[in-house]
Each structure stands twice: as structure tokens, then as C-alpha cells.
């Protein structure tokens, strides 16, 4: 017995297929119109505009401090706003807070998991956040009493369904932004552990994130194994811009100090600069001789220099405007896995698979 609903469904299906075809055409037309418009604006490259800019001289940067104490690969580090303290995390499950001036260890926490891939200092300097293979991001308030067991006050904030790759406090100690191997980023309330917003759009693991400088508003950029760098609106959860020019995983993203652009470092051995208002890649920092992936990038205070930590144990320093390399720094005995410039720009710190951190100035 034939169901009387089948003819209706058939009509519906035909109508939907028509709408589908129509929308596909509209979508294709809009996409090509967009490309046309964008191509018109690509009138020149950044390094061409920067030809008249004075070249940079020789740079002498050396290791000024070596922080020893981790028992295995250093995976992540972050500076405290006081410009002297540093938090670092390692494959051995340890999270250490250092005084970079004296190289003294001030706090140490042993996480219940190995591969603590992410750590961050709270803006107040009173807490640190970390996580990794435990799929969580936990916050540890830092006690002035050195004897106090930090693990006792631990607060579990974020829960992902795969490893935590990066974390960052927002402008206060109250909210944390996380990225994960589960392909999402998320914004959490620290006090309650509540998920405030989630960000879906990456097609694979998200490896890194960076918050826009506070003057530029509520956005952040993330990079992933899908070779995409996405810019997100923190309030709506929408992806507002997306860039896909890298040829491999994007390991690191960092905003240019003005907030108008961001740099990325990738396993394809290049760093790139994307301008948000031009909505395109405007520079690529590469050399034929550099064949190992970039793990971590950061800008100097003025944005003129871009520091890149590489898997070939070196740090390459790039002239952001001219696109040329101005220095190559040696010292680490294994991959450089993390790199951050200090808050006042007087130095930068690198962490390595050689178990150490180095301060360069």
C-alpha cells in the first residue's frame, strides 16, 4: 500500500533541490565577486612599500639567563606583567614559576598529567593556568607561602574532549580562553567553570591562539592543523575572518602590537603576516635554507622585529617591513618550542626541548 505522503514529499524534495541549486549558484557568484574585489586591492606588497624605510643594522643578542630545572622538554611559557616572573610547563608534568632576574624558582606544581602543553600567567600575577593531555585547563592561585601546597587550591576551569593546546587569560583573572585538539576554542568563567562561548570552525586540532590588544576590541585569532588562521568575535562566537595560505599546521599566532595585523608560524617553515583591514597575507618570512618548522613567534614592542623559534634549534629574527632576516641566534640544544617577548620589550624568553629556558637581550 503506497503511503499518501510520498507524492507530497517528492514535491518538497524537488522544491528544495531547486532552492539548493539556486543558492549554490548565488554562493559561487558571490565568492568570485569577492575575489575580484580583493584582487583589485592587492596593488602592492608590504616590502615594496617599505623600500624607502631605513634598513636595520647588526643585532647583538645573547643568552643572558639560562633557567634550568625542568626534567623534560619545555613546552610552553608566559611572562608575568611584572616583567620579571615567568611560568613554564613541561612534558614531565611540572609547572614552574621563575624569577627571571635571579633565575630562582619561586613555585613548582606537579600536574596529574604529562605533556603540559599550555600555561599562562594571570594579569594580576596572582595565579597561573595550565593544562595539556588532561584535556583541562586548571587555575592555581600562587601563594606567598612557599611551603603551601599549590595543588590543594587547584581549580578546574575548562573541559575539552581532547588535549589543551593553548590558554590565555583575557583582560582579567576572571575569564580564560582555551584552544584544543578537539578543534574548538572556548571562553570560560574562572570562578564557576562555566562555558561562556564556544568557537567552532576549524576542521582539525587548534594549536594556538592570541587575544587582540585590548584597544582593538573583543577578538582573538587562532591557528590550526587545518592550515587556517581564524579571527573570532568573542561575544558572538562568529568567525569574522579566515586566512588559508600556509601549507601546513599553524603552530603559533601573534597579533601585531597595533592590533591591525597578526603573524603566524607554521610547520611549512615560514612565518607570514596577515593584515586584517586588507584581509590578506601581506608578507612571508622564509629562506630556502630554512626547512624546519616554526614553533613560536612574537613581535618586538614596535612591531618592527619578528622573532621565530624553530625546530632546527635556532631563533631567526626578521625585519617585519622589509621581509629580510636580520639575525640568527644559536644556543638551544634541541627544538625551540615556545617564545615570548617580555611585557616591556627588554628581552625575550625561549623554551626548548633541551629542558631549559633562555632569556635573550
Amino acid at each position, binding site marked *: *500500500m*503506497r*503511503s499518501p505522503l*510520498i507524492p507530497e*514529499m517528492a514535491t*518538497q*524534495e524537488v522544491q*528544495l533541490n531547486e*532552492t*539548493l541549486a539556486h*543558492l549554490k549558484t*548565488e*554562493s559561487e557568484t*558571490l*565568492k568570485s565577486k*569577492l575575489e575580484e*574585489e*580583493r584582487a*583589485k*586591492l*592587492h*596593488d*602592492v*606588497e*608590504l616590502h615594496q*612599500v*617599505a623600500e624607502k*624605510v631605513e634598513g*636595520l643594522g647588526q*643585532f647583538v643578542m645573547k643568552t*643572558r639567563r639560562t633557567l634550568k630545572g625542568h626534567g623534560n622538554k619545555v613546552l610552553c611559557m608566559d611572562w608575568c606583567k611584572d616583567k620579571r616572573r615567568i611560568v613554564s610547563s613541561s612534558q614531565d608534568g611540572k609547572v614552574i614559576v621563575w624569577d*627571571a*632576574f*635571579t*633565575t630562582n624558582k619561586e613555585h613548582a606544581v606537579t600536574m596529574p598529567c604529562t605533556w603540559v602543553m599550555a600555561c599562562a600567567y594571570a594579569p594580576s600575577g596572582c595565579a597561573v593556568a595550565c593544562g595539556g593531555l588532561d584535556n583541562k585547563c586548571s587555575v592555581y592561585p600562587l601563594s606567598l607561602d612557599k611551603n603551601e601546597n599549590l595543588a590543594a587550591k587547584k581549580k578546574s576551569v575548562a573541559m575539552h574532549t581532547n588535549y589543551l593546546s593553548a590558554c590565555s587569560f583575557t583582560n582579567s583573572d576572571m575569564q580564560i580562553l582555551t584552544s584544543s585538539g578537539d578543534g574548538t576554542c572556548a571562553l570560560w568563567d574562572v570562578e564557576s567553570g562555566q562555558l561562556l562561548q564556544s568557537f567552532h570552525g576549524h576542521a582539525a586540532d587548534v594549536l594556538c591562539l592570541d587575544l587582540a590588544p585590548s584597544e582593538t576590541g573583543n577578538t582573538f585569532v587562532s591557528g590550526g592543523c587545518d592550515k587556517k588562521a581564524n579571527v573570532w568575535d568573542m561575544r558572538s562566537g562568529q568567525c569574522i575572518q579566515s586566512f588559508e595560505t600556509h601549507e601546513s599546521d599553524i603552530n603559533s599566532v601573534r597579533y*601585531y*602590537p*597595533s592590533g*591591525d595585523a597578526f603573524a603566524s608560524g607554521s610547520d611549512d617553515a615560514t612565518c607570514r603576516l596577515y*593584515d586584517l*583591514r*586588507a*584581509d590578506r597575507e*601581506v608578507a612571508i618570512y622564509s629562506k630556502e635554507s630554512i626547512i624546519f618548522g616554526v614553533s613560536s613567534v612574537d613581535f*618586538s*614592542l*614596535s*612591531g*618592527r*622585529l619578528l622573532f621565530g623559534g624553530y625546530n632546527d634549534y635556532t631563533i631567526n629574527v626578521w625585519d*617585519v*617591513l622589509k621581509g629580510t632576516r636580520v639575525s640568527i641566534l644559536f644556543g638551544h640544544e634541541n627544538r625551540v618550542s615556545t617564545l615570548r*617577548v617580555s611585557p*616591556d*620589550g*627588554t*628581552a*625575550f624568553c625561549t623554551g626548548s626541548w633541551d629542558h631549559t629556558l633562555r*632569556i635573550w*637581550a
Partner: protein
Amino acid sequence: MSTKPHSSNNIAHARRTVQQLRIEASIERIKVQCSNKPVSKASADLMNYCSEHARNDPLLMGIPASDNPFKDKKPCTIL
């Protein structure tokens, strides 16, 4: 009889695809309406920022050892 669930699956799938494409089309429309800056103007902005802040960039300018806490020549005492 067996085509009934098959048809409704098709419809549900088609509806989702239509929805997805409508979202994409609205994003594309917004992008086309937004005026992007030409690379020359955007680059000029980046250059200006660099030059304005260059003198306050310690790693760029190099600051004397006396001003940089990491460059101090005094030996560290281990207490």
C-alpha cells in the same frame, strides 16, 4: 514503502544544506559590502606604527646594560 524514510532523509539533508548555503551567502554579501583597505594603505599604517614606536623598542634600539635588568654585569649571588 521503503522509499519513505529515504525521501525524508533526503529532505532533511537538503534542508540543512540550504540553511548552510544561506549562512554562507549572507557572510559573502557582508564581505563584499565591507570596504577592505588596499594593501598599500594598510602597509603604510603598519610602517607608521613601527616608526612611531621604534625609539621605545629596547630590542630594536638596543639599550645600555645599565638600563636592562637582564644585561647587568654584576654576578648573581646565590643565597
